[in-house]
């Protein structure tokens, strides 16, 4: 079809129709599929609202209460418990740092077993990967509950909870980093007569460590966020204070604690992104 024909409406219309039949006359099936999915999605949504007890009256009452709480939250005020909150925040930071580090140290050898270029055999790799998956499939708060049963209430349970659940995540991420590493240095080591351990130590680790360090820093950052909440089930840190103040309806303290968490998280974000830039360079992150 020439340009002139295309620009001439009287001539081209029928021809276009014939040419792109599926665009002008889509089949019933393809025409119905999008609305059908939409209707099903909305239907399930409405069913969910009904099943989960959403009633407009309840919603209005709740929003009214919520508005009332918000007015009570202003201005944020720690009262006389500021030192206690600062200690709790320190505890939260400690939990995050320690938990993440333990997870990384334990996950490193295991991730070697889960990497395709280290363990070529599927039979060994598969169970390791599924094991990591099932650890990840359980929420951090559940791990916190389990550890509280083992070592008792307190921040130590929080450290272990973060260590275990991050172990699952690190195992996967590290093994992906290892699989992405360049083979040539490893082959060089092998050619010079190095053992398998030498290959890993001198061929692989120098490539992988900066990536891993970046990931660990990133996880410390995100764990400061999650460490603020594991206190809710009794595993130490600022979450404990927050849950308590919410339960006794001390709204000014609640808003102060939330602000404190937001500021700390922003601060940690800033510090750790600076460190990450220093370790792996700006471009690798962006």
């Amino acid at each position, binding site marked *: 079809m020439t340009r002139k024909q295309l620009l001439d409406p009287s001539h081209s219309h029928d021809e276009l129709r014939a040419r792109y039949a599926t665009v002008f006359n889509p089949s019933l099936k393809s025409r119905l599929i999008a609305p059908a999915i939409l209707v099903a999605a909305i239907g399930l949504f409405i069913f969910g609202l009904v099943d989960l007890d959403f009633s407009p009256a309840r919603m209005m009452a709740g929003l009214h209460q919520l508005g009332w709480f918000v007015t009570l939250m202003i201005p944020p005020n720690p009262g006389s418990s500021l030192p206690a909150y600062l200690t709790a925040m320190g505890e939260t930071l400690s939990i995050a740092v320690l938990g993440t580090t333990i997870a990384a140290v334990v996950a490193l050898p295991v991730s070697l077993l889960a990497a395709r270029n280290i363990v070529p055999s599927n039979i060994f790799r598969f169970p390791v990967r599924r094991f990591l998956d099932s650890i990840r499939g*359980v929420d951090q708060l559940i791990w916190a509950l389990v550890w509280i049963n083992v*070592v008792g209430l307190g921040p130590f349970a929080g450290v272990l909870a973060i260590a275990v659940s991050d172990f699952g995540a690190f195992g996967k991420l590290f093994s992906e980093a290892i699989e992405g590493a360049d083979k040539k240095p490893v082959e060089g080591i092998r050619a010079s007569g190095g053992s398998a351990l030498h290959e890993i130590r001198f061929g692989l680790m120098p490539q992988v460590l900066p990536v891993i360090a970046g990931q660990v820093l990133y996880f410390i950052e995100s764990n400061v966020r999650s460490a603020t909440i594991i206190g809710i089930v009794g595993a130490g840190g600022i979450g404990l204070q927050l849950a308590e103040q919410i339960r006794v309806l001390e709204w000014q303290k609640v808003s102060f604690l939330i602000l404190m968490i937001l500021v700390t998280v922003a601060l940690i974000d800033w510090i750790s992104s600076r460190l990450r830039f220093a370790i792996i360079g700006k471009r690798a992150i962006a």
Partner: protein
Amino acid sequence: MPLAISTLPDQQLNALKHAYRKMVARKRRQSAVTTVVIVVVLFVAAIGADVDLRTLTAKIANFTSYFDRILTLDGGARVWTDIGEWFWGWKKWLSLLGETVLISYVGTLAGAVVAFSLNFLAAANTAPTPWLRFAVRRLLEFCRTVPSIVFALIFVIAFGLGPMAGVLAIAIHSAGALGKLFSEIVENVDMKPVEGVRATGASWIACMRFAVLPQTMAGFASYTLLRFEINVREASVMGFVGAGGIGQELVVAVRKFYYSDVSAILALIIVTVFVIDITTGWVRGHFLGRERRA
């Protein structure tokens, strides 16, 4: 061919050797300092978190014995020898799991709708005015930085116990997280179609609808499914604070030492999360193209 190894004159060689040694020494110093800093940080953290190695050695046995206990039925037999006895409450648990999945479905969808309506305002290339963009971005940031379980705690007090608080908490958190991801997708679109639509005299909304949306729809759907996956996990713990779902049952079982129930509920949660992960992964892979996991 005779073997010839040329050596530099001593003076030049010494200078190079010296420079090499200096480099090595500097690198060693750097790693020593880093190691010391890390050790000090960990030490301080260990004190801050009340870590007591004696408790750990004394109680590590509890860890294995805890798993031993949750895998034992009241009668003393291993759980898998009598599946019927192990999953005695399966009817109740399955309906609670259904509630959990429904909480995350409704929460994710509501959050995605909010994120969808806000993200065009938050993206740099489509925001109508800078101050609106700034305000929307701060709002989204707030929504995703406050942990959803904190929202749930507050909502339980405002709306009463039950899944409603969980749904709202998940919706808010999803709106914050998805709003950011959506706006990043929008920032990466090709702007030529937008210019084309604008050239026909279309309004801002028409520009979004006919130029931006067709490019971004698959990405939006993909991220929403990913979020749904995460939210199922999150909804499984909403019950800890009374916001509905299977978590309530689990926390009761843990606190009251119904050991075999703990393992049964955990097993059900893990299987559910697996099934959801695999299904959504399959849907994403087949219908939406292989989007990179964020």
